[in-house]
Structure formats: C-alpha cells, structure tokens
C-alpha cells in the first residue's frame, strides 16, 4: 500500500504542472485583449499608455517567457496581480478561502448526515413508498440549479416567514470576530461571543442546505446500495437472531460496513460542492472564492481567473488523493499494486 501512496504522490507535481499549464494556455489564447480590461477602452488609441501597460504587466514578452515567469513566481506563492482589485491574487484568495471552506464543510456535513439517513431508510424499506420518496428527494437535489433554489429558499425563509436572516455571513451591522481560523462560527466561539456565533450559524443554514442538497443523492445512492448488499449477509441474520433491536442491527451492524464505500463518495462530492459554491455564493452574497471567480470571469480579469482555476484544480486533486489514501487505510482488503 505504501508503494501505491508513494506512486500517487510522485504523480502529483506532474498533475499540478499540467493544471497550471492548461490554466495558463486557456487564459493566454484569448481573443479579447487583456489590455482593454487593464487600461479601459478609451485609452486603447494612446500608444504611450499602451506601451507602459504592456511593460508593467509583462505583456511585451513572448508567451514562453511569460509562462516561465508565471510558473517561477507561482513557486514563491505569487499568483500575480488582479486586474480588477489591483491586489495580489494570492492574497485575495487567502482572504476569501475560509468563507468558502466554512460553507463547503457545513454543506458536506449536512449532505452526508441527511444522505446517509435517507440511504438507510431507503434500503430498510426497499421498493416501498419511503424508498421512492427518499430517492426522489435526493435526485431532485442533484437536478436543481443551486442559483435558483437558493433564490427561492431565500425568498421563502427570509422574506415570507422571517425564519432565517438574509444573505451574507453576518448581519450588515455586526462586526466580524477577530480572525483566527477565518471561520466565523469558530472565531466567535474563541472570543466567547455567543450572539455572533448564533448569527453566523443562522446565516450558514440556508446556503449550506442548498449546497448540501446537491450531494445528498450521491451519498444516499451509495449508502442504499451498500446497505442492500450488507443486509443479506449471515452476520446480520445472526444479529437479528440474537435479538438485537432493528435500529441496532441497522446502525451498529449494517451501516458500519456500508459506510466504507460511502467515505469515498463523500470525498468525491467535493467537486460538486465547489461547483455549487461558485454558483450559489453570488446569490447569498457570500464573500468566498466562488463569488470571486464569478466576478473575475465577468470582468475578464485573467490573472484572477488563472489563480482561481489553479486553486480549484489543486483543491480537487488533493481531496481526491486524500480520499483514495484514506480509503486504502479504512478498508484493509484493498491492496493496490
């Protein structure tokens, strides 16, 4: 198994380089002139301004040169400067990453818990009404455009019934807790500010539900399938014969084994959650990487687009690696060549 892990780790730098190269190629074979977004259309017939901007942003060099410079500065953690915010893309992303992570982790927890429950119920009541309902509910989640369900749920729960707050991570007048982790829920607890904590949680509920719903289907489908496989086995019959209660059989005996393949699915659901974050952060005015990506593409801010694409790809790659390795540890039957 260690050889498998080592081989996967060796492939990582190559895949990362591939990601960087593709992101660079995509953003540099562009039809639109990046100069327009730098100096604005009005200055485009002023040769002095154009020459200055070219030199300033390194656009006077050849493409291979630009590539080497970009990769070189990436190695020192420098993602270049955003054309829109005029700040380091790396810094922009670092400021916004905790917001997205807090949202994605909350969504992952919610999606997994509900997904596992639905999967168990569906397997227990196979081919009956509860099974069909659980599967339909999960399938709707993966067919919903999050930017729409977010809109509708926001309208219902914050405008119509006033149960949950509007968009944003906190109310407009609340000051953010001092940054330790960047997660408002944790940071407010660190300084003992319970009212800010409650506010952060209530603001998190709606976007996390919308996002979590998208991955419920993946999780519940896997749980249902592995539960059905497990429920036929002798040791389940033995547990029932011993007189174990039905919940105990389902949770302690069946689910424990059914969860192993589910771990993989939960890990891979990360990709869907990134997609969801990109599309729902705008709706919820969530100041994360997703809304940054949308703003960057809207204003054709190429350094920022490159940075976001590279960070997203890297995050995706690392989660998949962690999932695969975790799976190898959890299930001792797996031996990779």
């Amino acid at each position: 198994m260690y050889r498998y892990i080592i081989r996967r780790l060796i492939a990582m730098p190559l895949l990362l380089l591939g990601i960087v190269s593709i992101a660079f190629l995509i953003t540099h074979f562009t039809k639109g002139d990046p100069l327009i977004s730098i100096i604005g259309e009005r200055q485009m017939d002023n040769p002095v301004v154009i020459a200055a901007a070219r030199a300033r942003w390194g656009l006077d060099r050849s493409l291979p040169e630009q590539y080497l410079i970009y990769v070189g500065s990436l190695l020192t953690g420098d993602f270049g400067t955003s054309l829109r915010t005029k700040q380091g893309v790396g810094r922009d992303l670092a400021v916004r990453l905790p917001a997205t992570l807090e949202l994605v982790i909350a969504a992952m927890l919610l999606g997994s818990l509900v997904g596992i429950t639905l999967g168990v119920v569906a397997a227990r009541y196979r081919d009956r009404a509860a099974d069909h309902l659980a599967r339909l509910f999960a399938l709707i989640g993966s067919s919903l455009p999050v930017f729409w369900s977010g809109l509708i749920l926001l309208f219902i729960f914050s405008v119509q019934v006033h149960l949950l707050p509007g968009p944003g991570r906190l109310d407009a007048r609340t000051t953010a807790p001092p940054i330790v982790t960047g997660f408002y829920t944790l940071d407010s607890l660190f300084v003992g500010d319970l009212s800010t904590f409650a506010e952060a949680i209530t603001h998190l509920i709606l976007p996390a539900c919308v996002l979590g719903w998208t991955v419920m289907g993946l999780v519940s489908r896997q749980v249902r399938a592995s539960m059905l496989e497990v429920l036929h086995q002798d040791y389940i019959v033995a547990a029932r014969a011993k007189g174990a209660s039905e919940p105990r059989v389902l949770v302690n005996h069946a689910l424990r084994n059914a969860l192993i393949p589910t771990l993989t699915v939960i890990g891979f659901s990360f990709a869907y959650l990134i997609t969801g974050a990109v599309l729902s952060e705008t709706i919820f005015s969530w100041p994360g990487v997703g809304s940054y990506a949308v703003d960057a593409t809207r204003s054709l801010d190429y350094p920022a687009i490159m940075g976001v694409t590279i960070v997203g790809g890297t995050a995706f790659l690392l989660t998949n690696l962690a999932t695969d390795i975790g799976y190898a540890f959890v299930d001792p039957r797996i031996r990779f060549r």
Partner: protein
Amino acid sequence: MASAAPALAAAVRPRWLTTPVVLGGLIAVFWISVALTVGWWPIHDAFLATGGRLGPPDATHWLGTDKLARDVLSRTLHGAQYSLPIGLAVIASAVAIGATLGAIAGFVGGLIDAAIMRLVDVTLSFPAILLAMAVTASIGPGLRNATIAMIIVWWPNYARLMRAQVLAVREREHVEAAIAAGASAPRVLVRHILPLCWSPILVNATMDFGQVVLQAASLSFIGLGASPPTPEWGQMISEGARNFYQWWIAFGPGMAILSVALGFNFLGDGLRDILDPRTQ
C-alpha cells in the same frame, strides 16, 4: 379472477418500464416538441411587452410578467429552443471526440494511449464549472462559445469510458478469432470491438444531457452564455435575481431546468436497465 388483471399487466409490462421511466419519457417528449413547435403556439410574444411590468401570475399571464412586461411563461417555453439544441450539440460533439480518442487510446495503446489519457486526467482534475468559466471568459462570452467550452469540459468523460470498454472487449474470444482470420486492425476495431462498446456511453450521454442543460444555464446565469433579451433559462433566472421580490420571474425557468435534468436522469436509468440486464 379479478386479481389476475394486475398480475397479467405486470407480466406483459417489461421490467424496465417503471413510473420514473414513463415520467422521464413524457418530460423529454414535452420539451422536445415545445422546442420544435413553440413558434406556432397561440401564446404571448416572448420578446415584446404584453401587459403591465412585474405583474404577478394571473389569468392572462400564468407565470406573471418580467421587468419589461414580457410574459414569463412564453419566455420559459421559448427557452427550450436554446437549452435543448445546446445540450444536444455538447453531448454529440463530446461523445464524437471522446469516443474516438478513447477508442484509439484503448486499441493502439503505448505512447498515444499515454498522451491522450494524461490530457484526460489533467482536464478532469478541474472542477468542471471552473474550467468552463475560464474557457468561456477566454474565448469570449456568448452562447456559441459557452457551447464550445462545455464540449472541452465533457469529452474526457467519454474518452475514459470508451477506453475502458475497448480494453475489456479487446480480450474477448471473437476478437481473437477475427485477428486469427486475418482481419486488419481498423476492421477489428470498427467491426468487432466498437459495436459492443456503446451501451454505457448511451446511458451516460442520456444522463449527462440534463446536467449539460443545467451547466449551460449556469454559464448564462453568470453572464458568460446568453445575453439579454434572449429568453434563455439561466439568463432569465439572473433577471429574476435582480428582481428578488418578484419570485415568479425566476420560477418558470428554474422549474424548466429541474424538469429537464430530472427527466433525462429517469430516462438514463431506464436505458441502463434495458441495455445492461445484469444491473438491478
């Protein structure tokens, strides 16, 4: 023998013909016929003002009107004319490119295989939406470019699928027999291997269709796809987001996307049951 009727019906009805499959089929037929014929329907104009602005649903405007007083229901139905052809173009091109490259990779092997599959690996290591956004931003916003971007994002899935299929079928005895009989390599691939490789591709393509429609709407929602006044679903939802308190503006197009994604998912499930009797 009153109880015999349902039992007989169950025996005659094929196993794959379930309620979801019927529902999925109805949804698909509905949207396809809307896309083909909506121009002749006796409904409000999709581009012109036909009443008051931002009017809630009533007897004349079943789904209300938007900021420019256009009928939301009519615009939602016209949206099928954009979303379905885009979905078809993306899936057809992605399957054509992916299946060809995947078949070559699996059949030829060696360096060509390695080169194609590394490209597949790297492309698949981006979250799809980010890659689609970067490509569209780079070649310029618009429906046509968003379609191209989605083809770039989707083909590797089919390459991976096709390659795995070819590798599996290649080992079968009838292929060995064909080679022994002196068939040329292209003939072995096209006549003896490929015909057995299509089922999973067809199933996935059906299921992916809904997801492509959803992704196209996402790109339009961000502002990279359709632009006003096109009645495209994602574009309409972004108009709805700007008129947050008039919930009906986004309601129709959202339901349309949901129904297409759900419907094709159901259909794909049914198709899998037909084509692969081993599952279930």
